[in-house]
């Protein structure tokens, strides 16, 4: 009897402790962040905190990202889906983002974003730090539906300007639309958007590369040369180019792209 009571009290104590811990998921996340994501030590903590709080979406989201980083896509997507089930407002967007970047599953990403938009009841919603229509537009662009992508980029930019002002337009929104307009052979439109992007972010090599291509396409060779050379300088020097360790981003610009463009034009 004593033994039974002891087990009972232990069970109650564990349950109460688990519930207390689950109210502070940030604390559990901090335990995870002490270790390299995906490492054996991280995995041990991840297993442990998920056994304490199996309904904490953030813990599943963190686990999903770790598996996606390392190409373990089945477990990665299973965890991200669990996170999206528990917290569809945040993690449907996160799953869309992962589908797009890790798997190039653009149709799946669009489907997740459509569901998210229905849940939210509107389109003015951010996924990571990006307006959801920018992410959806990138997916349509990758599928080759440029017209739909243009429509979405424009709505996203206009909504942000209208709701909060020009300063609230996303860091790369004009870049995305400028690149798309270049692909659609609307070179003047591309130059206009990319010039706005230069104002937004002066040391980004990508913008000068695409604007250089657009200038070249309309015969403004000298301006094209200046931009392409500047893009090269930024990549080789202290400027920035958009890149990620864990995946290749859409429309990524490499030094060899810039050098080839210079060779082609001159």
């Amino acid at each position: 009897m004593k033994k039974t009571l002891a087990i009972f009290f232990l069970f109650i104590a564990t349950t109460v402790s688990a519930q207390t811990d689950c109210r502070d998921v940030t604390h559990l996340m901090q335990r995870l962040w002490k270790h390299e994501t995906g490492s054996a030590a991280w995995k041990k903590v991840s297993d442990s905190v998920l056994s304490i709080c199996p309904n904490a979406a953030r813990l599943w989201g963190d686990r999903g990202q770790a598996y996606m980083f390392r190409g373990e896509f089945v477990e990665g997507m299973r965890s991200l889906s669990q996170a999206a089930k528990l917290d569809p407002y945040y993690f449907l967007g996160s799953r869309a983002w992962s589908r797009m970047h890790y798997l190039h599953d653009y149709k799946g990403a669009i489907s997740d974003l459509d569901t998210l938009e229905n849940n939210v009841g509107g389109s003015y919603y951010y996924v990571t730090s990006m307006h959801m229509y920018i992410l959806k537009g990138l997916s349509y662009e990758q599928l080759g539906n440029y017209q739909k992508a243009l429509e979405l980029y424009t709505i996203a930019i206009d909504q942000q300007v209208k709701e909060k002002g020009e300063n609230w337009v996303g860091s790369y929104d004009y870049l995305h639309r400028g690149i798309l307009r270049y692909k659609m052979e609307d070179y003047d439109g591309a130059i206009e958007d990319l010039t706005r992007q230069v104002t937004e972010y002066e040391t980004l090599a990508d913008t000068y590369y695409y604007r250089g291509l657009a200038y070249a396409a309309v015969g403004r060779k000298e301006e094209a040369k200046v931009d392409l050379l500047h893009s090269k300088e930024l990549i080789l020097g202290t400027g920035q180019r958009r890149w990620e360790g864990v995946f290749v981003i859409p429309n990524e610009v490499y030094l060899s792209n810039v050098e080839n463009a210079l060779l082609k034009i001159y």
Partner: protein
Amino acid sequence: MRLVILLIFINVAAVAQNVGDISFDPKTDDPKFQVCNPKQVWQGYQLKSKQDETPIMVAREFRSKFRSNPAWKNESGLIRIRFLVNCSGVADRFRLLELDPDLKEKEFNADLKAHILGIAKSISWPPRRAYNQTVDYYHHVSVRIVNGELSDIVQ
């Protein structure tokens, strides 16, 4: 007692695994392949740099070497290849993950798999550096197949 020690060892070994670690398989792996520092194998994404152009080279290799075959016309999905590159730039322990278009595990046609694996093995994977020395690292790349054709390289 021996059994207990063995079970503890197996349990510790299982717990000590990082996500995505690849153990030696005598049926498929080169027994001569060695990592330089088994205590620290990096992940490729930790070692990329601003000027890294490996993705361009890898895409070019897959696109130029892939040859379609009418027998594969019903094959669609994603094939992920994960492997180890040692500090000398030698790659081995290639492992495939085969997924259908809905990301469920499946098995692709054996010849198609062998073709994809052959291309991955033919690539000169670059040695990577950390702390001023070349290091061992895991890497992965995926290819999307649509109706037997190479439609995308995901990396």
